[in-house]
């Protein structure tokens, strides 16, 4: 494996009506981990798509190992040693790991149409050993965790003799512990002279793993930082072009003693086991834990999306039976799911259609006819109050940026005037600016008296917003911490409490 340097110079690319990249430079030396950062829409993905042959550049040059290159397909880029792992992993979920590893590059027995399974298995074992991960080879990929699926993608790249690996938000659906493991792998690759371009919205991670950070804003280079000599504030300033005094708004109001919502001994095997907690009026209750700790499943049990086997749900002290999301909405319980595109939005429909999806009861007359005037008024009201950026409410929602899409989803649930709002990863995959706005909205909602359950895999978010923190692990509540006792250390030690190979987090 020879080590090559990548030099992208003066890259310009425009799409009809927008200049996506203007005169952008990027250099990556062998064995270097370069962070590529910027708000959503800053041009990171476009730049990487040009590099890997998805888009053609308008002007500029790409030099790889001293030679000028222009890949027409991702396949050509892979052959040249440049692989990309997308945020939405690109695999066949119905196939086993081995089939995915060699998809399109299967090995055959000599002069025959039959697969050489033995050699393929050996090569796979070799590469997983090198990565120091164990993957269950006998099950379909869809049954593996996201972290494991990601390892398969990395292994796939290694099997193609990768020199430069691009990772687009690789940690967005990993727990902190899995992230640590991934970073170990990245460091290993680095020591072998393999370069990595690391795209992320998470500042602490970028500071943890990168050597250098290149910042894009509105399709232009706005600066470059040598990671070890810089601070997070400097990076944020470069990304947004203005100083953010603090990422988290200080909460003003205190939660009241009135319990709005309570679950008792809630169980839904195999993910949730005997979970109990209460939320007060105006309180933000953080729900922390590793991926797979049962937090999302708990929420789904509460709203009746899956059937509970045991337990009680109490609203204002009275037990209620909730068998479907429809009944949850009727009781004033709103759940904002973790995956915006798959679970929250009808992407083909307009902003208005999506925003009013859960309040048809309010909008319709006896014949089920929707009152358009009222619908427009409500839509405009939330577009204004949440400061959603769009050209008009009849826009197809998929044309909005991620942050604004998420605000529409939040508006959709606020429109139901919930007593309890469960937010599952409300800031996943949205840019720094939108994120701080969403944090502000959450804090204001709590101050106005809504009871909030906040599920998040980002400890900083949990710590910054929560009045109390419930820590779950393997489907059980391990501890409930008050704001003053909640720290990264106390949460992580509880999150790892039961597991045999619990590692103390350093992040």
């Amino acid at each position, binding site marked *: 494996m020879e080590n090559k340097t990548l030099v992208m110079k003066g890259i310009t690319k425009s799409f009809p009506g927008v200049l996506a990249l203007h005169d952008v430079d990027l250099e990556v030396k062998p064995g270097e981990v370069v962070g590529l950062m910027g708000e959503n829409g800053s041009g990171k993905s476009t730049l990487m798509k040009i590099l890997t042959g998805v888009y053609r550049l308008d002007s500029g040059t790409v030099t790889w190992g001293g030679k000028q290159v222009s890949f027409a397909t991702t396949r050509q880029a892979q052959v040249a040693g440049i692989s990309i792992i997308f945020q939405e992993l690109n695999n066949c979920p119905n196939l086993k790991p081995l089939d995915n590893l060699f998809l399109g590059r299967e090995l055959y027995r000599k002069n025959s149409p039959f697969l050489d399974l033995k050699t393929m298995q050996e090569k796979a074992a070799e590469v997983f050993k090198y990565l120091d991960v164990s993957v269950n080879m006998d099950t379909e990929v869809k049954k593996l965790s996201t972290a494991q699926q990601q390892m398969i993608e990395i292994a796939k790249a290694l099997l193609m003799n990768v020199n430069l690996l691009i990772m687009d938000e690789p940690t967005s659906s990993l727990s902190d512990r899995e992230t640590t493991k991934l970073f170990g792998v990245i460091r290993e690759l680095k020591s072998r002279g393999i370069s990595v371009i690391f795209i992320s919205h998470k500042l602490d991670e970028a500071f943890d793993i990168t050597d250098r950070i290149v910042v894009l804003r509105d399709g232009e280079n706005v600066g470059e930082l040598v990671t070890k000599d810089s601070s997070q504030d400097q990076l944020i300033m470069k990304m947004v072009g203005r100083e953010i005094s603090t990422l988290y708004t200080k909460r003003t109001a205190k939660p009241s003693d009135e319990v709005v919502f309570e679950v008792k001994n809630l169980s839904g095997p195999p993910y949730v086991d005997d979970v109990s907690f209460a939320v007060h009026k105006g309180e933000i209750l953080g729900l922390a834990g590793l991926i797979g700790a049962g937090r999302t499943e708990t929420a789904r049990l509460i*709203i009746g*999306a899956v059937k509970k086997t045991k337990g009680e749900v109490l609203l204002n002290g009275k037990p209620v039976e909730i068998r*479907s*999301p*429809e009944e*949850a*909405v*009727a009781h004033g319980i709103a*759940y904002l*799911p973790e995956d915006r595109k*798959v*679970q*929250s*939005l*009808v*992407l*083909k*429909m307009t902003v208005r*259609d999506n925003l009013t*999806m*859960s309040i*048809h009861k309010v*909008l*319709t007359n006896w*014949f*089920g*006819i*929707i009152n358009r005037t009222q619908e427009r008024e409500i839509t405009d009201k939330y577009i204004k109050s949440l400061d959603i950026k769009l050209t008009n409410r009849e826009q197809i929602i998929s044309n909005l940026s991620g942050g604004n899409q998420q605000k529409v989803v939040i508006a*959709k649930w606020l429109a*139901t005037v919930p007593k309890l709002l469960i937010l599952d990863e409300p800031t996943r995959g949205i840019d720094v600016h939108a994120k701080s706005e969403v944090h502000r909205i959450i804090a204001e909602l709590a101050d106005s008296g809504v009871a909030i359950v906040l599920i998040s895999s980002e400890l900083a978010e949990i710590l910054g917003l929560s009045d109390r923190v419930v820590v779950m692990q393997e489907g059980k509540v391990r501890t409930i911490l008050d704001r003053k006792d909640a720290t990264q250390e106390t949460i992580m030690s509880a999150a790892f409490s039961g597991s045999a190979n619990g590692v103390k987090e350093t992040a």
Partner: protein
Amino acid sequence: MGKKQARGRSVVSEIVKQRESAIFLALLIVMAIIEIMAPNFLSGDNIYLVSRQIALVAIVAIGELFVILTGGIDLSVGAIMGLSGVASAGAMASGVNPVLAILFGMVIGMVIGVFNGWLVSYVFIPPFIVTLGAQEIARGTILIYTKGWPITNIPKSILFIAQGDFLSIPVPVWIMVVVAVIAEIVLTKTSFGRRIYAIGGNETATFLSGVNVKKIKFFLYVIAAFTASLVGIILVARFNSAQADAGTGWEMNAIASAVIGGTSLAGGAGSVLGCLIGACIIGVLANGLVLMRVSSYWQTAIIGTVIVLAAVLDHIRKK
């Protein structure tokens, strides 16, 4: 003045952009070609006959549209037509009041719809399988009851629903207009309609938004069975008898009308207007080929080609 013009232009460009406009243009071209090759095509008598035929296909297609909009499919509508026709004709032949007999036929047809809707929505069996099975069950039931013989002795009093006209327009066309207007209102103005498109666009998100997805999907199959039963009974009035094989292959005409009219089989996109134009294209083409004395074997192949062509063009247009 200038403002008015600009506004006029934007309305025109808006109309041109609609997917229905493209198929409407295709319909006009097909009609023009047929008129040139077979000049009696646009004669009053022929238009009268063709419009009656198209109306029946369009009614079935509108019911099918509801199902397809959620990404489902109903292959049993043709057999439901046959079953409802035989049930109501059987009742009439044995002396039951014609109105009650028609209601009876409608109920029998809709029982199949309830069966489909229940298995698809609540037992989670894929609609393709459920409705294919339902088709066979309905056809088998017809044969058990009629032993393959037509049922005659249909009271004269009901024949007007197929053979009569009002203001020189065939009654079936009026029925189609009523069905189409109701369907259009339901799909574009009501919560039910909005949710149908939402389910077709993203069923998971719709469910988590607090929509009772199962109930809605259940009713769609009942709606498809309702329109099919209605047409099944009109066919009885048209032929003065209930044929055991009535409605055979109509599910394909219904699906084709929807698809030619721009309905996505994946769900989430499609309209009543598109469906009507799709039914017109199929009906006009079938009639034109007869007038041009094209052999019936060729007719089937040509209509098949048009269906595939429509799907390909729609795919290209979307790019």
